[in-house]
């Protein structure tokens, strides 16, 4: 096979389930064109979030974008979310086909 994969950046965010609607709205405002969300639980500096009920549930969001966009979004998260919300975000270098999609 003769595949040409292209580099993109995957931004993964783990945060409180309660911010899902507003965070997804923000992501779209910041130029993200697609995302995937899954339910999660976890533990971090703000203590255990064991998903026993909605207030203590986490979500895990993934969005594939250009390196530039990913850094911009990460910067926005730091500015608007890091201080007040249980949140972790990180970047991973990945490869995709159909680069125009991301």
């Amino acid at each position, binding site marked *: 096979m003769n595949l040409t994969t292209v580099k993109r950046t995957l931004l993964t965010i783990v945060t*409180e389930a*309660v911010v899902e609607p507003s965070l997804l709205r923000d992501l779209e405002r910041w130029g993200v064109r697609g995302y995937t969300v899954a339910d999660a639980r976890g533990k971090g500096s703000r203590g255990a979030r064991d*998903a*026993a*009920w909605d*207030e203590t549930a986490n979500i895990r969001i993934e969005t594939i974008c250009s390196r530039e966009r990913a850094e911009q979004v990460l910067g926005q998260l730091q500015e608007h979310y890091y201080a007040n919300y249980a949140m972790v975000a990180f970047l991973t270098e990945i490869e995709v086909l159909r680069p125009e999609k991301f």
Partner: protein
Amino acid sequence: MSFLDPVILFFLFGLVAGLLRSELKLPGALYDSLTVFLLLAIGLKGGQGLATQPLAPLIPQIAAVILLGVAQTLIAFGLLRGPGRFGRADAAATAAHYGSVSVATFAVATAWLAARNIEFEPQMAILLAIMEVPAILVGIALARGVSKDTDWGALGHEAFLGKGVTLLLGGMAIGWAAGPEGLVSVKGLFFDLFKGVLALFLLEMGLIVSRQVGALRRCGLFLIAFGLGMPLLSALLGLGTGLLLGFSVGGLTLLATLAASASYIAVPAAMRIAVPEANPAISLAGSLGVTFPFNILAGIPLYHWLATQLAGASS
């Protein structure tokens, strides 16, 4: 009628299991489903009662409970800011919890009254739905000021179309449109199983409350005092309002309970978005860790006793 209502026993069981660190955990989807059931059932029951009476007297009642909610929120804010020395955001968010209401507490109170065959006004369910909302808006205004460019449209949308209010009002509309006869066919699910479902729900509430103990320890004595004193004050405001509105003893008890109760679903979610700098652990430790158990274990019988005294005196 012994004090040991199974519904309360289920709560205590969950609490003890949680404190002993049992591995007991109900599936999240079960907890959500039980919530949906309780909200719909309360709405249906209220709506079916409304079907048999005129709606016009509702309007002053709605206005009165809005004022009641606003007043509670402002008083709570004053207490938390002043004697409590809370920061602005924490005080505003916590005040909003106490100005709003708790559906679970309301459900326990209706079950308590039903077990004693004490009637109450059917519109209590609609007042419950109404009272969820104003404290949220007041709390946000207290935290941010009203001058700031808050998106009140989005907030209003969220407050009125949140899950709780939607299910309560939807249930009431269905109950009102179908009437007691129409509901016979769904009675087997929504009315006959109500207390069993409430028991299961309170088991989970006990588990959730048990997790507040750590936060409570960190938050200190003032929060505990506030979590016990505020509902008493609010209950008196509720009783006063109920007397002005001419409610029965059952209605007085429920309005006092509603006023005394503190939100732990709708308000935390709304505050988390609108006042993110407030620490949610504080408000929840108060409303879930102190006020909720106090109300269902001791508050409801107390408010009923007060209602009986007041109704006797005023008649």
